[in-house]
């Protein structure tokens, strides 16, 4: 669709595009961006505080460091959050009173103070189930319900973790000359064992889209919404796949905030794009009421559920590795020519048991750590 829009403009070949630097200067220090939820239930509360940056600024996330961050109750209680990572302020457990309204307080190193509106902790019902269907792709759904019909608005995020194996194991390595060029081949370990540190890996990815839903149109506060999709033949489900879904109840206003952010930033690029609109959250600066702050802070108890899926549970998943092995002669010239490949195993020995030729493949087919970590997560069975 984006392409289409572009083509529409260049349709008559006379159109042209030029760089456009908007005549807008974001304030020197950027707008404060506050991402997180006050967890009024069991488990940690964590906020990621950063700064919006200029459009053309190539830097990575500009975290707001060394700020004073705390959760304040209307009853004058307060719960400090400490910076546990760059721009990440958290507390392992807050123990809040569900009848007291809480807000987030931030004092930056500039000395500016920010507070969110006071919000009553919302009770989040437990996740009933994460179910899935697999006509072709694997479609995952979140099921939850509130028997009191009170919650109505929900937000989710998920983390998926999967175990995967390299296409080929390896017992070999290149021997390099003084210039760092591969000129020969040798065993990795004297006992000719396989490399185990690059064969089994785990990879975790978090949701990047805003996920929310509402049961407001339904007679019962019951949710069954698609939450994630794994494309058929994906490598994610080759050994074991796990999805952890975190659920928070949100207020109607918080829901609308998320909805607007999503329309502004995720549902763009089509011919039917909505014109962008502003985003007003519930965090305010104490000194400048007009300062733009991105974030909508609420208190709710976090609910989590994790499921595991094995490839044997799926029908015709059909993951096929695209990896291929090439046979390389043990000769400096051909080794050098193929040095961009990773050697795997011996293909042919000479009469004397030396390596006559060996197999090699793309490193990514051999070294799983190029894509994941060789560290079993604690929750992994």
């Amino acid at each position, binding site marked *: 669709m984006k392409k289409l829009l572009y083509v529409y403009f260049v349709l008559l070949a*006379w159109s042209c*595009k030029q760089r456009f630097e908007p005549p807008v200067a974001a304030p020197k220090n950027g707008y404060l*961006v506050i*991402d997180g939820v006050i967890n009024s239930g069991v488990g940690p509360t964590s906020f990621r505080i950063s700064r919006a*940056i200029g*459009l053309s600024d190539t830097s990575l996330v500009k975290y707001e460091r060394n700020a004073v961050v705390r959760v304040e109750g209307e009853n004058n209680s307060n719960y400090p959050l400490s910076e546990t990572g760059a721009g990440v302020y958290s507390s392992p457990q807050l123990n809040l009173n569900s009848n007291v309204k809480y807000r987030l307080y931030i004092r930056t190193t500039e000395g500016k103070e920010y507070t969110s509106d006071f919000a009553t902790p919302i009770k989040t019902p437990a996740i009933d189930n994460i179910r899935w269907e697999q006509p072709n792709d694997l479609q995952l759904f979140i099921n939850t319900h509130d028997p009191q019909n009170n919650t109505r608005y929900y937000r989710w995020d998920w983390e998926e973790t999967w175990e995967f194996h390299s296409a080929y194991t390896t017992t070999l390595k290149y021997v390099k000359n003084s210039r760092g060029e591969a000129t020969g081949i040798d065993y990795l370990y004297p006992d000719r064992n396989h490399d185990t540190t690059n064969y089994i890996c785990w990879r975790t990815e978090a949701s*990047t889209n805003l996920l929310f839903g509402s049961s407001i149109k339904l007679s019962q506060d019951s949710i069954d919404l698609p939450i994630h999709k794994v494309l058929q033949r994906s490598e994610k489900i080759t050994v074991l796949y796990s999805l952890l879904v975190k659920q928070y109840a949100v207020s109607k206003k918080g829901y609308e905030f998320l909805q607007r952010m999503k*329309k502004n930033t995720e549902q763009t690029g089509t011919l039917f794009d909505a014109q962008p609109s502003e*985003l007003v959250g519930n965090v305010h600066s104490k000194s400048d009421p007009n300062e733009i702050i991105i974030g909508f802070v609420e208190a709710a108890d976090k609910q989590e559920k994790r499921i595991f899926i094995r490839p044997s549970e799926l029908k015709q998943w059909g993951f096929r590795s695209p990896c291929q092995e090439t046979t390389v002669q043990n000769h400096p010239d051909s080794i050098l020519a193929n040095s961009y490949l990773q050697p795997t195993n011996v293909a042919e020995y000479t009469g004397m048991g030396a390596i006559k030729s060996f197999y090699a493949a793309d490193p990514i087919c051999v070294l799983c750590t190029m894509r994941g970590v060789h560290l079993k997560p604690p929750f992994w069975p």
Partner: protein
Amino acid sequence: MRRLPLLLATGLFLLLCCGRLAAQQPAPKPVNLILNDTTIDVILQEFEKQSGYHFYYDRAQFDSLRFSIVISNQPLQKALEQTFENTQFHFTIMADRQSVFITKGVSIKTSLPENFFAKAARDTTIREVAGVPDFGDKKKVRVDASVENRLFEIGNKNNPAPGNVTLAGVVRNVKTGEPVVGATIAIPNTSIATATDQYGYYSLTIPKGRYVFSVQGLGMKDTKRQVVLYTAGNLNIEMDERVTSLKEVIVSAAKVANVRNVQMGTERLTIRAIKQIPTAFGEADIIKAVLTLPGVKSVGEASTGFNVRGGSADQNLILFNDATIYNPSHFFGFFSAFNPDIVKDVELYKSSIPAKYGGRLASVLDISSREGNKKEFTGSAGIGLITSRFNIEGPIQKDKTSFILGARTTYAGWLLNLLPDEYENSKASFYDVNLNISHQFDNKKDYLYATGYISGDRFNLNNDTTYGYNNGNVVLKWKHIFNNKLTGFLTAGYDRYAYHIQSEKNKLNAYKLGFDINQLNAKADFTWYLSPEHTIDFGASTIRYKLNPGNYEPLDKTSMIMPDKVPTEQAQESAIYLSERWNVTPELSIQAGARYSFYQYLGPGNINQYAPGIPKTEDNITGVGTYGKGDVIKTYHGPEWRVSARYSITPTFSVKAGYNTQRQYIHMLSNTTAISPTDIWKLSDPNIKPQFGDQVSFGLYKNLRSNSIETSVEVYYKNIKDYLDYKSGANLIMNDHIETDVIGTRGRAYGLELMIKKQNGKLNGWISYTYSRILLKMDDPTSGEQINRGEEYPANYDKPHDVTMVSNYRFTHRFSISLNATYSTGRPVTLPIGRYYYGGSWRALYADRNAYRIPDYFRTDFAMIIDGNHKVHQKFHNSWTIGLYNITGRKNPYSVYFTSENGRVNGYRLSIFGNIIPFINYNIRF
């Protein structure tokens, strides 16, 4: 050769002088005569004997004609009248010479007092003018010059009606038989004046007596008619085209229409003026020409609509021969949907909208097409870089029925070939076809007009998605002249606009999406020429709407798309109106009208109900009302006022003021940056209120240098209520609860328009400056969301400053050049002011709606118009238009957009015509 009529006129003029002198001579003695079945010789001998006057006549003209008369002691005048009654003979009494001239067919005119006039024509039509020998080109049709010097006697002299009498008729182009629209028929030095309607018809109610009418029409040579009015009658006036190919002196009489007109904010453009304005591809373009007028703007070069005085694109009623056109453009707005060879003229009402029009807030653009040539077959064709057009016209029945057929198509395919290879399979095409038939019944009181229009657009970008839209209109109009004072029109029509999108990108998701508006309308309009002081217009109209707001279905059996249909909507909009034009004094003229519109949203339908006082969101739906077929779901109605007045301080200087209110029941919803063919229209329903607007305006009009230069200043202030703007992140496609995605806003628009216009001479054109603002405000606390915190924000077509120059210089009659220049402030946009990381992703951060502007717009265009020779006898006349669009090559930004590239969010400004575009167009007329 052509001197002859002139000599004749001079001769008549001399006679005229003599006649005046003769007034003091003794009158002829009365006559007594009883004769049965007698030749003319015997009668005239008797008359000579008794009156003492000499008679001059051509015996041969009387042939074997015989008379029976009874005259008892009558003055000679009366006796002769009685004698020649119901014959083709005219007589002229020359009292000074004691002579009487008797002529056949043609009368010798003098300017004697009324009772000196001979021949009483009982019938109310004028006798044929005798053909004055024209030794020149027989094919060339011209108005006989002597006609201006002839005295037309209207009505029955012997039985004059008491009080005022009404004169009516049709003003036509003598060459083509086409009616002349907007021609003024005025009596110099009085306030008596009228203008012809769309069909060339006029009516004047004035006291009995003798008048000289001065007749002026756009593109026509000024003419005059001498008339003596006894009783009601008709006078059809034929006018010559102003032929530019011949050197001639154009004597311009008072061109005071802009000063004298009561209406303000009315702009008329003839196709001749439109054709002088350079356009991107060399083809005359109606909408682009309208955009050069003060107070009219567009969002960008390739946008579909136009904005009038702070109105949105859907607030313009675009009428093409009474048919409503919903999408007036082709090819994303690069061309307008009207074939320039068919269009006669264009009238834009932006302030004093006549009471007979309604249903839109900002303006009425009335485009009328030509009637076919009633005398002979002619045609024309044009070849341009992208489009070709052809039209043919001619009589079906000579002087009664004619047709005109025009068609246009495109061959823009080669342009698409210039695109990168990945788009090699793209296609784009459009066409439009017009057919008009007009018929005049024998009784000269009934006229029938049938017009049909279809247009289609289709484009496909690399076989993925096909977009298309179509207009289709049929109108049947019957005009009836009840009598000279009352004319009526009965119009019925069917209008349709539809668009469709088809995607085959992914077999499983292949879909088609359709949208259409259908309206069936009927109206009756009457004009009653009560007296010279009073003209009354009244009538009624009704429109039945049927909208299919969205039909989403799988393209074929392999598609997994779930069919979805937004329920059909229907409504009836009716109105009655009455308006009067009152010339209070020659200086003061008032036009006042009222229109009452009545709108019903009709079932069947399901209407969402929302709790009052809280935002209309999906979550707040409290119930759904179900209505059956024909049920009235919601009624809106109210009066609309249209008042304007003109006061002439001097004959060339006047002030005008106006106030009008408007209601609009159908809305176009768009939240895309550029207006796309996929914008939807929505009828007012219980959850979407009609828009309401009112405007006050004031203007000063001054003509300089014997009216050859018109200047004007107009100011206006406008309030708009319930204009729909979209909520942040609204979704309008396939949405059956659109009320949750739009918000009613209040708007105010104000502005100043200056214009200097020179219509005649070698150098002609205009310069206009417009200052205008349109500010919207959404501060209803119950709407759930306040745009820009409830502060005023500019609408996305708010462009405060605009200067436009349109000029044409005619070096010779075969060569002229045009130079246009336009500057305007860049339109407002909502820009991202940064990016931020939230919810696992980089996101663009947008600031206030429409808080920034794209860079200013400036463009200059140049064109040369070269006509072939003007020899009369050749079968084909050709002309070339050669020009350069955007001669400064300025890269005017059309839009700005932001895209992620290599981890950065980059902004781009996009220009549609970022270079000099040469164009050439060849036109041929036969």
